[in-house]
């Protein structure tokens, strides 16, 4: 049995975008706030604040989570990927390239969440159907683009069905 008393912190060690990070966090600290305010990783953003919109999406051990409704203490011993960790140095991730080329970026507020969600989808299903992509993005809202260009960008990064076999 262990406990973190009220108003005290516990140490969290994790890997963020490939780098080890050690932090002291309080139990009520939300992952989104820790990423944004403590680690200065501002790419994940707060919008609906209730797991509907996806603007705060980050990957924890590869799985998309809503950082706005996720306790920071939970990432102890795990790997966190934010949009800042997508590119390999100056080399953009293919999804990032595709989003730019397809004009899938407008105001940009949803972009990080869209990219990470798409990354998780393609890891799970490298050759999704258009319907599967739209369904997987059910919890990823965009108010600017109308989604068409986002869907196109993601599908452009899918492995063609024949090659996948």
């Amino acid at each position, binding site marked *: *049995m262990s406990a973190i008393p009220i108003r005290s912190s516990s140490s969290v060690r994790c890997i963020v975008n490939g780098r080890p990070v050690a932090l002291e966090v309080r139990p*009520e*600290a*939300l992952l989104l706030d820790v990423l944004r305010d403590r680690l200065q990783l501002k790419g994940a953003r707060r919008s609906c604040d*209730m797991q*509907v919109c996806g603007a705060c999406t980050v990957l924890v051990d590869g*799985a998309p989570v809503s950082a706005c409704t996720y*306790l920071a203490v939970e990432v102890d011993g795990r790997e966190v990927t934010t949009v800042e960790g997508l590119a390999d140095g100056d080399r953009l991730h293919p999804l990032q390239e595709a989003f730019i080329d397809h004009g899938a970026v407008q105001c940009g507020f949803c972009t990080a969440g869209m990219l990470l969600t798409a990354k998780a989808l393609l890891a799970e299903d490298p050759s999704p159907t258009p319907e599967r992509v739209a369904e*997987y993005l059910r919890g990823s809202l965009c108010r600017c683009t109308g989604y068409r260009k986002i869907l196109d960008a993601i599908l452009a990064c899918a492995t063609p069905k024949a090659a996948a076999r």
Partner: protein
Amino acid sequence: MLRPFALHRPATVAEASEILAQQGRDAALYAGGTELLLILKEGLLRVKSLVDIKRLPGLAGIRADNGHLLIGAAATHRAVEHAPEVHARCPLIARVARHVANVRVRSVGTVGGNLAFADPHSDLATAFLLFDATVRLAAQAGERELALGDFVVGPYETSRRDEEILTSVRLTPWPAGTVGAYVKYGLHERPTLGVAVALTVAGGAVRGARIAVGCVGPRPQRLAGAEARLGGWSLADVERRAGEVGAEAAAAVDAVDDLHGSAEYKRDMTRVFVRRALLVAAARSAGRESHERHPHTVVV
């Protein structure tokens, strides 16, 4: 923003129950947090402690148990979606789990949390009712097992006592020859309606039928009257007369007005979707899969 709380990580169910017994309503059970953290953020619930039960040994497990399927309360929707045991014994549940909320909620949200929060607009409880689900509640004093229908007593209301922990849900796989379908419909984030049906067919006739309807009322319901009507029907009867069962279900269902729609509309949608779900199940029973699509509708 969350107000401060302590986080307890008990090593055993007994320890967890002890904290709950001591702190009463000042403590809340915490697993995935997808529901709990929302009401804490809203300030609708204020607690001094969260009791994290998702690391309790075995609580996240999914396994066969004496012919049943046992899903640990801390198993995530995603785990249910992918577990071979679920695919083998209750494949419909794996398909339902794949469509719960959105991918982020599925990564984190747990089966136990979903049942214990008892949001009326939810998929799992409805689908579980089709498998005669029982839930196991544990406390220091001992354990008890309840039918899911007795556990969920109303919107957000369960018969769990403050010191009890929901540890697992047990599903009884269907007899051979049973085919099911789950159909959900709705515009909003949460479903407006969920219908689960299963038909056990032997010798070309329905030997058993199960129908559950959720989201339209205070809690999900099995509709025994509608189920009984199907007894002895051939698949052709089902395809021809499914509408009668839908109408019976609509008459029996307890529907309420809310943002998702009027009770009147929901009742009629119960009629429509019970019929549609039965048609899907009947087709599957005959080895056919319908690819008909309807707006705002998910068929699994």
